[in-house]
Each structure stands twice: as structure tokens, then as C-alpha cells.
């Protein structure tokens, strides 16, 4: 017994933290980065004047959908799906715009914090309903899509309100270098502060565990109901951030949500999150948002009929995911 115990430590493998090691462990995301570089080069090729200004504009316009993709990714990793992301963004956006109009900067700070709290609350209500009623996630969040959209129209019937100047400035323009848009920094900070520490904690493992195998998670001692509610609360928080980003980028609140919900689902699928749950991260979906936007930009620059460009986008989405699954299958067989 003691003899074998002595050999316990042998061959403990260490994780590689250099670039190659990280890329190997995140093959899908690495592939997406490659795709991103290809499309950036393509954009520059098609439109030689495309430069720092274009990237800044892109970053601002993509911040809301990137945050929506993060929200969706967290829920789907945990084994759910949130169709109310777009409506929550609209509701938090109009609420912030109505409250902020004509207020001082100091009050606006309080309002921003309150809106984040409101996002957590909306998400908690979504998750709580799912856990309490045992109605499937997709049905509850579909219903809440209508509920939150209705509230958004009650708060503000036509686009209006205002945004604190500092909030609008926080995502405009570059930081340090003209190639580093503030919106990108904001996104990195938000994800870095909220998601990264969480993902490395036991709570984060619980989110993955819940999405991967609910029964095994329960038997491993994961509080299944609470973890589910937490995943929706986080989605609510990121939707609120997305809503604030909408207000900040336009300066007003708009009660009718864009197609953020479905676009967020497309982004996470392209971003390597398994719709079955348990697999993926938030970096992939964020890159996927940019790739999808660049595809649209390129098609516009090429003068393609926008209706065709929608068709092409859909085809590319299927093609990339199929290609990825084929590669994954190869890897398993080898």
C-alpha cells in the first residue's frame, strides 16, 4: 500500500500556458480568430480606405449584440436558452434613457447601477419561473419575450429619453492607440470582471456541470435550481449591459428590440457553444459576432443586394458549423 502510494505523484501532467498550448485547448476559438483575420484582410482588400475609423464604428455598433451573445452563451452553456434577451435589452435601454434624461452625471451613475440591478432582477424572474413552474426554458423565455417587450413599450412608447454624456463617451473613440476602440476595452473589462473569475470558481463549474449532465450535476452536489436561476440572472445582467450599450451608442432609448435574440443564438452557435449545453465559452461568441458583422460589411461593400446578403449569411453559418463538426468527428476517429 505504501509502495504504491509513493508512486502517486509520478507523471502529473502540467497544462501548457504558452500560446500554442492555449490555442490547442481552444481549437474552435483559434479557428474563429483565423476567420476574423481573413475577413479583416478581405475587408481591407475590398475597401482600401477601411481603417481605424471603420473599426471604431464597428466596435460601437457591435457592443450591444456582443453583450447579448455573452448573455446567451452563459445560459446555453448551463443547458438553457433565453429568447427574452432582446426584450430585456429594450426594457433596460428605455428605462435608463427615461431616467437619465436631464440628470446630472452623479445621478446617472446611480441609475446605471440600478439598471444593472434591474437586469439581474429580470433574469432572476426568468430563471425563477422556469425552476418554480418546471415549464421548459424555451417556453418561459418566449413568453417573457412578450412580457418584457410590453413593459418596454409601457415605459416609453416612442424612441426618446436621453443618455448621460459620460456614458456615451465611455464607448466612443479610441483609448491609447487609434486601433483600440473604447468599446472593445469596455467589453473586455466587463467580461473580465464578471465572467472570468466566475468561470474559474466552483460556481462556474456548476454552470458547466448543469448544462453537461443535469443528473450527474445533481449527484455531484450541485444545487440545480439555484444554479439555473443564477445562469438566467447573469444573462439578465449582460442583457442590461447590452441595453445600456444601446442607450450609450444612440443617445436615446428605443422600445422595439432589434433582432438581438436570434442574432445572439447565431453568434453562440458559430462561437462554438453547444446548444446541448456544457461546452463553449464567451470569447468564441464575441469573435463570432464580429465575423458575422464583417461578412455583412463585405457584402455591402461589394454591392450585393442586401436580401441576398441575408441568404449568404445564413448559408455561411450552416457551412461553418458543419465544417467544424466534420473536423471534430475526424479528431475523435483519429
Amino acid at each position, binding site marked *: 500500500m505504501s509502495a504504491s502510494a509513493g508512486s502517486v505523484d509520478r507523471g502529473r501532467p502540467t*497544462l501548457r500556458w504558452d500560446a500554442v498550448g492555449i490555442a490547442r485547448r481552444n481549437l474552435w476559438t483559434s479557428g474563429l480568430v483565423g476567420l476574423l483575420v481573413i475577413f479583416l484582410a478581405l475587408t481591407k482588400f475590398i475597401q482600401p480606405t477601411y481603417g481605424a475609423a471603420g473599426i471604431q464604428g464597428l466596435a460601437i455598433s457591435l457592443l450591444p449584440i456582443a453583450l447579448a451573445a455573452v448573455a446567451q452563451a452563459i445560459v446555453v452553456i448551463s443547458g438553457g436558452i433565453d429568447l427574452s434577451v432582446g426584450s430585456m435589452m429594450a426594457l433596460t435601454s428605455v428605462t435608463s434613457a427615461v431616467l437619465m434624461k436631464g440628470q446630472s452625471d452623479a445621478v446617472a451613475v446611480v441609475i446605471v447601477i440600478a439598471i444593472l440591478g434591474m437586469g439581474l432582477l429580470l433574469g432572476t424572474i426568468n430563471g425563477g419561473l422556469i425552476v418554480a413552474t418546471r415549464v421548459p426554458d424555451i417556453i418561459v423565455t418566449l413568453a417573457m419575450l412578450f412580457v418584457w417587450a410590453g413593459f418596454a413599450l409601457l415605459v416609453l412608447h416612442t424612441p426618446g429619453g436621453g443618455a448621460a454624456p459620460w456614458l456615451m463617451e465611455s464607448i466612443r473613440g479610441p483609448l491609447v492607440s487609434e486601433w483600440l476602440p473604447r468599446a472593445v476595452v469596455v467589453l473586455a473589462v466587463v467580461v473580465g470582471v464578471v465572467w472570468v473569475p466566475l468561470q474559474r470558481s466552483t460556481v462556474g463549474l456548476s454552470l458547466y456541470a448543469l448544462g453537461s449532465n443535469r443528473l*450527474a450535476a445533481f449527484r455531484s452536489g450541485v444545487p440545480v435550481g439555484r444554479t439555473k436561476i443564477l445562469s438566467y440572472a447573469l444573462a439578465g445582467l449582460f442583457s442590461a449591459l447590452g441595453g445600456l450599450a444601446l442607450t450609450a451608442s444612440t443617445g436615446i432609448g428605443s422600445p422595439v428590440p432589434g433582432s438581438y435574440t436570434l442574432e445572439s443564438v447565431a453568434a453562440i452557435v458559430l462561437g462554438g457553444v453547444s446548444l446541448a449545453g456544457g461546452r463553449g465559452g464567451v470569447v468564441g461568441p464575441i469573435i463570432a459576432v464580429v465575423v458575422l458583422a464583417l461578412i455583412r460589411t463585405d457584402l455591402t461593400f461589394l454591392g450585393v443586394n442586401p436580401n441576398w446578403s441575408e441568404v449568404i449569411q445564413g448559408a455561411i453559418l450552416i457551412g461553418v458549423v458543419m465544417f467544424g463538426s466534420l473536423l471534430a468527428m475526424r479528431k475523435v476517429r483519429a
Partner: protein
Amino acid sequence: MIPGTTDLLLDATGVAKSYGAVVALRSASLAVRPGEVHALMGANGAGKSTLVKILTGAVRPDTGSISVRGRSYTAHSPSEARAGGVVSVYQEPALIPDLDVRSNLRLTRTPVDPVRHWLVELGLPDLDLTSLVRNLPLASLRVIDLARALAIEPALLMLDEITAALPANLTERVLEVIGRQKGTDRSVIFISHRLIEIAAVCDRATVLREGATVGVVDVTEGSDDRIVELMLGDIVRGGPATSADGKTPGAVAARASVTPRIAARSLASGTELRDVSFDLYAGEVLGVVALEGQGQDALFDILSGAERPDGGELRIDGAAVSFRHPADAIRAGLVYVPADRAEALLMQRSVRENIALPFSTRVSAWGLINVGDERRKVDKAVATLQIDTRAASEVRRLSGGNQQKVTIARWVAGGVRTMLCFDPTRGIDIGTKQQIYQLVRDLAGAGAAVLYYTSELKEIQLACDRAVVIFGGRVVAEIAVEDADEPALLRAAYNLRADAPMPETVAATAVAVEAGAAPSGTGPGDVGAAPQ
């Protein structure tokens, strides 16, 4: 308080649980002494799993009292049970597929070093803790799950069919480690359908029948019969040997001139299956014996049409075939009964639909289903297999044994020519097992051919006419049923010559686990530790 009660580590009395009108437990009691390995026995549906669920906090009992080490015990979740010193290892490993082993340990807040220690003890010294659980074989997952449970030194460890589907070498290590828990202040509840294992490691056995405790037996030589009698109640009198020996020896004659139903020649697939040839004739049950991971999975995948072979030839009734899809195999009369019922059944649908599925799709793929004909066939199959249809509206509510009967019934209902059974009795109770042996014999008697892989060696003599042994992807032996006792099969499965001395680890199998605890073995029995 009754004197002596506090000496018990676990004392559960009068535990009852009903789900609506269905009574899962009427009045179960279970008393476990410290340092004891205690078997919990019972046919499927006797209430074992409900009792385990209650002890682990997954389900709350309606009535009854439970105390652990003299203190009243209630758990509302597995984590609370863990905190109370009660840990269970399930048939389905409670590991998260998308996390690596180390993250799984972190999730349950289990210290890593004790787990490593137990992995070494259990015969998996080279396991890479950064491997993704999804990519590990089931046998390794069970061992990891057990090592994780042992690492936190629970007062009460519950093991549900821990040895099911484990290869023989790992089974030995596991039984040996469990045996070592004796004499400590901790106890083990051991649930298994394998009486030989009960005899090897358990001190006492509590037997449940129809939701109530019907007896507590000291496990000694010859207690097997008593346990089986208690488990079966009035259903079957006598030991397993007498009722299962219903087949007539030598029922299958030599048939040099007859075309075999299946003729496999040098089948090969990847690195698993290298060279497998055999003939399967109508009217016989051909056993397949192999340690875990010797290529038997690939063989059955090929025969059932799920996978195409890389090499070799397959002839059905003399004609060369190449299956592209399970439907091709079914059309050629080859039907498949997997060990995992979930692979075969539509769990949310009714017994009737599950049985009717294959032949209604075949008879009229696009037209209307002939309801009258379907009902007759299904009723006949249900009656033949004695399927308990109280929960017939959803197959997932049936017990494991009854689910397996449904998988077999669907093929029987359509008329079966060749049946491929892959460990069909895995994790089901002894009564149902015997029904399945009998059914397999009856099918062969009626002219069907059956290929029967089993991880339980003693089933070969209970159900088969002869056996082929696969080792390293090759057929290494063919053994007539008279000679196919467990030692002979085990030798062949390890690819040892019949007269070779048994490696000491093999010899130790289930005979004297305590005595065999000292040497950890140098024989070939140790080689299987590395997962594929």
C-alpha cells in the same frame, strides 16, 4: 430507546414511499453495523433504488425513521447527504462529461491526492487527470467515481452495481478494496446482482421484496440459496442452477453441410477488431466472451449495421453482405439488443409503440398502421415475455429488467431470425435474467440463431451452446459449453493456455478477497489498468 441501537452505523426502520398510487417502498428496514460490508438485495422493482435515493437525499420518504451513528438523519440533497457522511456511487457515474477529471473533483470539493492514491489502489495508476470525462471508457469512469467517494472517507458508502460492466481485472481490484473497508469504523452498502461477489465481500445481506424487507441473512457458504429464495419469494423455488438448466445438452447437432446463418471471416475494424471469424448456425446460441475493450463493441456494431468493417467478409445465409445502415441489417434478419436500454427504446413512448416500432415501420413505411394486427402481435409478445405493463404508457417508468424485456419483445413480435445480444442482462435482477436465458433458449429452439455477448462468465453455461473468446481483437478460443466453466473462460479471456497456471490476481477472484489483499499482483491480470 432500545439498548444496542446506537451501535449501528445506519439504522433505518419502517421506511415507506409512494408515488401517487404506485407504492415503491412499503416498509423497508436496513441496519448496518460499523465496519461491515452489507449487501442490499432484491429483484428489480423491489425498492432498492428508492431506498438508496432516500438515503442520498434525492427523494424524501413518506414515513419511517433513519439514523446514522445514533443521530437522526435527514438529507434533502446529495450534498447534504455527503455532509452527513453518506455517499453513493451510482451505476451511471456521476461525472460531468464536459469537464476534465480534475474539475470534476473540484466541483465536489474532493482533495486530489487521496483520489490519486485510490486510483492506484483500484488499478488505474496512469490516469491523466486532465482528460475530458467524455473521452474516457465507462469502466474507468466507474473506478474514478469510486476513488472520488473513497477519498472523502464517508461513514457510509453505497455502491450500486459497481462491478457491472467492469472488466475482470478491475473487478478484482474493486472487490479487494471494498473488502479492506471491513473492520474500520466505516461501512459499505453493496448492491449487486452477482451472488459470487456478495459471497466474496459481504458480511450480511438485507433482502427486499415488493417494497419491504423480507430478511437479513449472514453471508456464509451456502447462503446464496437462502438469498435467492427470499428475493424471488413465491415466483421460483430453488436455486438459479435448477431453473436455468432447462436447455437440453447437445441440442445442436454438428452441421458441416448446413449453411451458417452468419459466417464472419477475418472481420477487422480500426485498432480494436483485428481478425474475427466464426460461424453462427440456426438453432444455436453462440456465446461471446471477452474482457472489456477487446473489440467486442466493434464486432456488434458491424453485425448490427452501425459501422462498416475495414476488412474481412460477412456472409448471411451464404450471401456476402455489406451493411450501410442498421436498417440493412434488420432487413437481413439481424436484430440487436444492446446492454444500454436507452440506446434501443423511445423512453417517453408506450410499451406498445416501442414493441410495434420496428415491424410497423417495415410493413408499411408510409401507409396506415394496421392497428388490429399490431395489437395482436404486441399482446402476444407482452404475454410471451411476461412484461409488467402497469406503467405501460411510458417505457422510462418501467424497471430496468422490464425495459430490457421490451427491447427483446419488439424483435420477438416481428418474428426473429438472428438476434445479437450485447450483455442483455447487465444490471437486471436474477428473476428477469432467468426469463431472458429461457427466452433465448426458446428462440434457438424455434430455429433462430442468437449471438450472445456477456460480461458475466457464468451466463455462458446458462444460456449458450458454445462460446468463442475474443482477446486483442482476435478469436483466441472456441469452447464447448460442457467445458465453459468460469475458470476455463477466464483463462481463455486472458489468452492463457488451458493448462497454464492462473495468475494470482485471477485466482484471487472472489474466492478469498481478504486473504488476497496483500499482493497487488505481478501477473498479466494487472495489464488492463491503462484505459484505451
